[in-house]
């Protein structure tokens, strides 16, 4: 993009410093809201903008805010910065390079719902970027933009960072709340929804880091300005994380629905040695894989859904023709097996058994019947898990077999005498770690 809405660090050096941020319209929306807008007006403009949640679900943010009961206090804003989906690294860049825009978005959300405390939950591995974000929060307090009676408006706001400690499941919003309350990160039964009974059983808004980073420019410039980007149903810009088999992996901010997957890969430098694309994971391990025939799919929520996958967090992992699909699927299933929280049986047992079958195949002991066994295990999980993690775990299994069954059959045929030496080292390592208690 010519001028970024979110990744403004690419246009303005050192925008992570408050002076430079403020010299570039930083906190102008916050001042505008506190000095001249009612909370419901802030919520209204976000609703009108059509901003959809960027964490994966794509639910309209303003509508979500509107679910909070008006007369129950305290309320909380919780920011989901757990960013653990394989292939996702956009929130990492936002908090490390443009932290004030995140803080300003959190503040505007808190004002809109009248919450006076916000917690930013960051994955534990973000200890380093968390320091950048904390320094920015400290700057905002010192500038009188946070704390008590902000800008003489009578509004109070405290923003606190909470670090997770290595658990993908905490990206699930109710598991995140449990974790923030000091418990195991395991999802809660809904209802009640967090909007009604969230953190400490109080009304709570939970939004992704990127979602809230969109809010300051929306409040400052208006809903119509925002809608110049994107499509009717998917307004605005989105950060696309591109990784895997591309020459220039990285974050690319684009208007939703404007470009195709093929163009995104070109922006990311194309594939190594110009190899053909074999598969595309549009939202990391959680998204059903798409074959190369989907390369001309547009980059928005509706188009990806129509193509048979999801836009989700828009973490595009590209697999070229040199990649062994069975090996890649095993990697993804290993991820879900590692990250299953253990609360519900279909997910806990399903991911365990699916990985066992993959290990059997990859170690050269597989049979054609094992391919069907994988489908059986996945079907035994689908629509039966307590939360989406278990459902997502079926994606790499079912979608790779659907599109690349011939690859599975060939793998089994070619390795039927236990000759998959190239993978033995990897399997041994995973098993050794499992025994040593690192729960792979």
């Amino acid at each position, binding site marked *: 993009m010519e001028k970024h809405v979110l990744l403004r660090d690419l246009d303005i050096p050192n925008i992570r410093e408050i002076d430079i941020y403020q010299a570039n319209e930083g906190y102008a929306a916050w001042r505008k809201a506190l000095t001249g807008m009612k909370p419901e007006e802030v919520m209204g403009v976000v609703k009108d903008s059509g901003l959809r949640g960027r964490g994966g679900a794509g639910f309209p943010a303003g509508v979500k805010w509107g679910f909070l009961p008006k007369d129950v206090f305290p309320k909380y804003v919780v920011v989901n910065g757990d*960013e*653990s*989906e*394989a*292939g*996702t*690294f956009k*929130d*990492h860049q936002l908090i490390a390079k443009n932290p004030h825009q995140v803080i300003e978005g959190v503040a505007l959300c808190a004002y809109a719902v009248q919450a006076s405390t916000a917690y930013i939950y960051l*994955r*534990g*591995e*973000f*200890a*380093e970027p968390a320091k950048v974000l904390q320094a920015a929060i400290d700057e905002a307090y010192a500038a009188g933009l946070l704390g008590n009676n902000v800008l003489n408006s009578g509004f109070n706001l405290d923003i*606190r960072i*909470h*670090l*997770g*400690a*290595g*658990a*993908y499941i905490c990206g699930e919003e109710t598991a995140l709340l449990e974790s*923030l*309350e*000091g*418990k*195991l*990160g395991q999802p809660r039964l809904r209802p009640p929804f967090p909007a009604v009974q969230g953190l*400490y059983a109080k009304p709570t808004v939970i939004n992704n880091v990127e979602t809230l980073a969109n809010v300051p420019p929306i409040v400052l410039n208006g809903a119509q300005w925002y809608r110049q980007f994107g499509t009717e149903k998917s307004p605005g810009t989105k950060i696309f*994380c*591109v*990784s*895997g*088999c591309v020459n220039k*992996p*990285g*974050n690319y901010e684009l208007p939703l629905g404007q470009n195709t997957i093929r163009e995104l890969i070109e922006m990311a430098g194309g594939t190594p040695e110009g190899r053909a694309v074999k598969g595309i994971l549009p939202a*990391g*391990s959680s998204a059903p894989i798409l074959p190369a025939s989907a390369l001309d799919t547009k980059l928005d929520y509706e188009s990806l859904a129509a193509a048979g996958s999801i836009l989700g967090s828009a*973490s595009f*992992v*590209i*697999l070229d023709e040199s*990649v062994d699909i069975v090996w*890649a699927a095993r*990697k*993804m299933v290993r*991820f879900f097996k*590692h*990250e299953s929280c253990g609360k519900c049986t279909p997910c806990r047992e399903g991911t365990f058994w699916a990985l066992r079958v993959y290990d059997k195949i990859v170690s050269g002991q597989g049979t054609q019947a094992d391919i069907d066994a994988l489908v059986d295990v996945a079907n035994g999980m689908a629509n039966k898990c307590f939360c989406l993690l278990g459902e997502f775990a079926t994606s790499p299994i079912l979608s790779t077999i659907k599109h690349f069954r011939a690859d599975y059959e060939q793998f089994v045929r070619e390795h039927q005498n236990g000759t998959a030496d190239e993978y033995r*080292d*990897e399997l041994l*390592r995973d098993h*050794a*770690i499992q025994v*040593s*208690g*690192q*729960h792979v």
Partner: protein
Amino acid sequence: MLKEKRADDVQAILAKYPTKRSAVMPLLYVAQQEYGYCDDNAIREVAELTELDPTEVKSVVGFYTMFFEEKTGKYVIEVCDDLPCALRGADEFVRHCEHKLGIRAGETTADGKFTLRTVMCIAACDRAPVAQVNTEYKYSLTPESFDKMVDDLK
């Protein structure tokens, strides 16, 4: 004891939340900084500070991978070998790390200097192979830069 040795940190953490229980993870990080890992003594101290049963604190330690239940090396090197990194050579890179350190992933060197672990995605796939050394990111690693890093830490 943490409540004396790290009194300011402990108080600041407890003040951040309306319940003491919410402080359990940040306090475990403080304990881990002080003691290197979350042994039973650390767990008992955190339990006392949060007014929880030690068993509950221990379950938190067990659930989250970043709390260590056993002594680790001085430097914990965590290399991502998840799919996006593996597509950019992470598995081969892990083999190199094992060779350089003379241990398998999951082990600690005999001199107690280094623990090598493989980890799931750490949100830096654009700069693979990537590792964290005591949670400090090391991006776009090569066998040469890894060797130099290890030699410098020795």
